[in-house]
């Protein structure tokens, strides 16, 4: 079982934050097929968040095929992120660390690096949306 948290200053909508946390846990192997997600009532009560927000997040995850709702029982993870993509993750993470090292050597401070990275992510997201 995972525990959710919300960052009210992140500028990311609460339901998006919940979705990201589930995806993140899947990628890191913290959630596997068959695991149950906390009930809507539990999440609403512990985070003081609107139950519709939790429902919306779970529905979106269901639409993506990551979880399935069993009526009257709960919401369960249906897909384990494959070992291969976990391995790819590690390799990419190493490459990114190396890239950050090169950027620092080129004289960029961490804030500039973050700005560069965010801009690249945003423009990729925009292309994906088109």
């Amino acid at each position: 079982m995972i525990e959710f948290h919300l960052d009210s200053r992140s500028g990311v909508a609460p339901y998006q934050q919940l979705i990201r946390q589930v995806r993140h846990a899947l990628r890191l192997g913290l959630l596997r097929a068959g695991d149950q997600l906390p009930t809507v009532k539990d999440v609403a009560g512990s985070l003081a968040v609107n139950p519709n927000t939790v429902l919306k997040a779970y529905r979106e995850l269901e639409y993506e095929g990551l979880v399935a709702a069993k009526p009257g029982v709960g919401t369960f993870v249906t897909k384990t992120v494959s070992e291969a993509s976990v391995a790819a993750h590690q390799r990419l993470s190493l490459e990114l660390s190396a890239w950050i090292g090169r950027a620092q050597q080129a004289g960029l401070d961490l804030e500039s690096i973050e700005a560069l990275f965010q801009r690249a992510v945003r423009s990729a997201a925009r292309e994906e949306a088109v």
Partner: protein
Amino acid sequence: MTDATAAIEARGLGKRYGHRWALTDCTLTVPAGHVVGLVGPNGAGKTTLISLATGMLAPTTGTVEVLGARPTSGPRQLARVGYVAQETPTYAGLSVADHLRLGAHLNPRWDAGLARRRIEQLGMDLKQKAGNLSGGQRAQLALTLALAKRPELLILDEPIASLDPLARREFLQVLMDATAEQEFSVVMSSHQVADLERVGDYLIVLIDSRVQVAGEVDHLVATHHLLTGPRRDRAGLPANQQVITDSHTGRQSTFLVRSDEPIIDPAWTVSPVSLEDIVLGYMGHSSARSADIKMLGARR
């Protein structure tokens, strides 16, 4: 949702005290099935609107319907609506148990099991006098009474305004837990917009008795954008971008706009806005407009 009965429906609603109007010509629909945040500056008419909706006041003009009926139409209507007034009042001289007994006598749909369970969960002593409870516990007691009534609509007037951050969070946790369990509609007035962003899924901004903006929170956040870029006039923006606020320096312009379509102009840096930014934007928008009107008056 289209033919669902509204939680609150006001048409041309007004209330006058002597010469002073506390609410004028207010027309609004509060949809059912949501946790609705009602925000606006002090004096906007929020408490007056709530008092009219709960039947504590009679309107001077117009009509208000709650769950499809007049607030003062009888005991059946009173049983359908839970109400927690400002400062979450309780009877200081009565114990927690006395409050529960009182609730049981006064409410036909009283759920004694629910009341007892909630009080137990909160760790409250039944023998304690309400006057000796902390502010947070008093608020929880008032909320418990309203929940045990098994209302279809729960109206809360600034329930968390005077609570410390921990008590505020605990109050909202219980409220959300109950909302998930009992499935009632909630209307809550508050200045704590950051809290409303979590617990609310629908927002109404009321300024000078007028609804400035109303809609589902996710939709409002998705359709408002902060644009910054090289200096440009308000008139230079496309017609589908409604300007809420703008500010300019020698070289730079900043706009808060509402637009259903994505912002594609590459000159702008587009940043997402929080619900608080949106609410403050509309409040600033309206005070700037009334300042304009005052200046025009002064010139004449």
